[in-house]
């Protein structure tokens, strides 16, 4: 046993080892603080150690690219048939060299085929890599800005004309009502005050974070992702405002499909949107210019929803710049709806 470990239990053994160890840890923390303050341990040192280890790690650990992985595949593709013959013993090297000479024709035949096979796989992977890069380039060139919410200031707030008709449509909602995009919760609060259980989501997380929540249930989440996480037929009503304007056609279709399965039979869908006049106005929000889609006419919404099993009606706003769609879901369960 080493000298250090041979020592017997001391007379100075503390009465409370737990407290003593805690005290030692506090002293160690102070020692580290002093070391750092003295410049003995610059912060970059540990980062450099981490980077050095990562340099030896597999690509999966480093979060590297497919191209980098392929470079490593290429480097390992050639399999050398000439095995090393070094040995700690002089005779060992001679024996190994003799064996290598005798077996080289056979080992060479095997490794040649293995190298060819690996090269073929590598070539195929390079083609996949090239195609992926080209696809990424094309997608990037067509990418449009993400305008998750396009909100017209005159359409927001409890004084907006469409709030009362929306509340009336939701009065008999057979379950909880969701408002998206809820902003600071102004409509959720109003719906709750009318005696209907409501909550809100909004992808603009900072707005939700600074909202005065009171007893409101507001969440900073994407609308489609949230709806996908809701149970089938789990909602009595859904209000969409500022949500559909910025969507491309495909996104809107996906949203309607998931709304159809999350609304309970007899549930109410309320959509507030704007006409093209508002869209083209000089004071339209900047998101209107960036959005990939364009606003639908009220009749188009009604047609889409009726095709999807709703009883829908449209109501124009007082100045004709916006409108309200209310639609009640037919009494089909989501599963029956899917079967149709």
């Amino acid at each position, binding site marked *: *046993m*080493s000298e*250090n*470990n041979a*020592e*017997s*239990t*001391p007379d*100075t*053994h*503390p009465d409370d*080892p*737990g407290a*003593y*160890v805690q005290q*030692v*840890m506090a*002293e*160690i*923390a102070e*020692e*580290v603080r002093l*070391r*750092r303050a003295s410049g*003995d*341990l610059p912060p970059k*040192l*540990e980062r450099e*150690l*981490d980077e*050095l*280890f990562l*340099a*030896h*790690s*597999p*690509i*999966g*650990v*480093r979060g590297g690219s497919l191209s980098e992985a392929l470079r490593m595949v290429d480097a390992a593709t050639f399999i050398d048939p000439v095995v090393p013959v070094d040995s700690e013993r002089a005779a060992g090297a001679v024996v190994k060299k003799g064996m290598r000479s005798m077996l080289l024709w056979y080992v060479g035949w095997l490794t040649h085929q293995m190298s060819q096979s690996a090269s073929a796989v590598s070539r195929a992977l390079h083609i996949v890599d090239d195609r992926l890069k080209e696809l990424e380039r094309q997608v990037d060139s067509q990418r449009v800005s993400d305008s998750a919410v396009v909100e017209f200031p005159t359409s927001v707030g409890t004084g907006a004309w469409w709030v009362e008709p929306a509340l009336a449509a939701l009065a008999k909602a057979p379950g909880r009502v969701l408002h998206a995009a809820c902003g600071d919760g102004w409509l959720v609060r109003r719906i709750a005050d009318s005696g209907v259980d409501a909550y809100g989501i909004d992808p603009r997380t900072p707005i939700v974070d600074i909202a005065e929540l009171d007893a409101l249930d507001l969440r900073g989440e994407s609308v489609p992702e949230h709806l996908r996480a809701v149970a089938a037929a789990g909602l009595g009503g859904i209000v969409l405002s500022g949500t559909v304007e910025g969507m491309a056609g495909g996104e809107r279709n996906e949203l309607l499909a998931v709304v159809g399965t999350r609304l309970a039979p007899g549930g109410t869908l309320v959509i507030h949107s704007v006409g093209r006049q508002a869209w083209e106005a000089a004071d339209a929000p900047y998101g209107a210019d960036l959005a990939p889609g364009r606003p639908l006419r009220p009749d188009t919404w009604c047609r889409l929803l009726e095709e999807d099993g709703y009883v829908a009606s449209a109501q124009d706003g007082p100045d004709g710049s916006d409108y309200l769609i209310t639609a009640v879901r037919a009494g089909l369960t989501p599963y029956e709806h899917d079967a149709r």
Partner: protein
Amino acid sequence: MSAAAGGPVAVHQFLPALNPHDATGTHTLKLREVLRQAGWRSEIFAEAIHDDLAAEALKHWMYPEHAADGDVAVYQFTTSSAVAPYLAEHGLPLILDFHNFTSPELFAGWEPGNVTRAAQARQDLALLAPEAKLGLARSAFSERALRRAGCRRTAVVPVLADYGRVTATPDPRVAAELAARRAEGGADILFVGRVVPSKAQHELVKALWTYRRLYDPNARLHLVGGTSSYEYNRSLLGFVDDLGLAGAVRITGEVSDAALAAYFAEANVFLSLSVHEGFGVPLVEAMTAGVPIVARDAGAVGQTVGHAALLLEAGDPAYVAAALHRVCTDGVVRRTLVAEGHRRAAELRSDVVGRQFVDAIAEVVGRP
């Protein structure tokens, strides 16, 4: 199974693999003796059996030839295995003896095969835990995992191990080599465990580099244990070389019990920066051998060592180096940790733990 009828006649053990010099293998063999001494018939059935232990166990699919009414199965849960669905299918009254397993996330990026196995282990646990009459965990940390998986009745019983091997006569050749290096000065830092990402040997190397830079330029690190992660082992070797520590870090691979005793005998401090430990047999071995411990407080480490270690919240090399320095230079700290280690190790002796196993099993299935 019927406790009212006088309890089971046989409590058999099942496990994925029975290997020598392996914590689970040792535990299984010792538990068989404990069960037999308590009066139960007990055999071992495994999916894989090492040649050296061929006489000690049977393949799990041979169980029906030995089955009898009232049999109880104890499953040594260590990893994914065909034994898990086999037990689920046969519907034997089941006791899960849970050793925990490394989360698949900890292998991510290193070994795809290990990720798959770990994910399958998680599924095996979800399959068996709700059906188990009792779940026995090595630590409160592992007990929580059992509960989360749906096990309704659980207890904490430590592992049965042969801790005495670390105080046996050291291998003279290894002891002489270590003594020669010690004569050059510098502390000997020891870690024992498989070379895998979850044991974080690269963080031990970082700590050694920092410790040498700040406190002890001659310090050495001994990493004892085989590997099941070729990629991690290769990265570790490259890292050691790049830091210029090839002469200061010894990666031994698997060693004999006598060689292990030599490493413990010469160690100034046992350092563990594992990020996942379901129990930590080498920690108890260090306490048994009288080696003070510095460790990251991960998984069950804190529960295993009690006050016998300087426990760190993270693997920050500056803290690790300062803790190593304190243990290596402060006699009171070292003696306190060693004394606490002996006290804690006594609580984990096999005779003590064996009685806990018998009591826990008998409480559920009845006395033999």
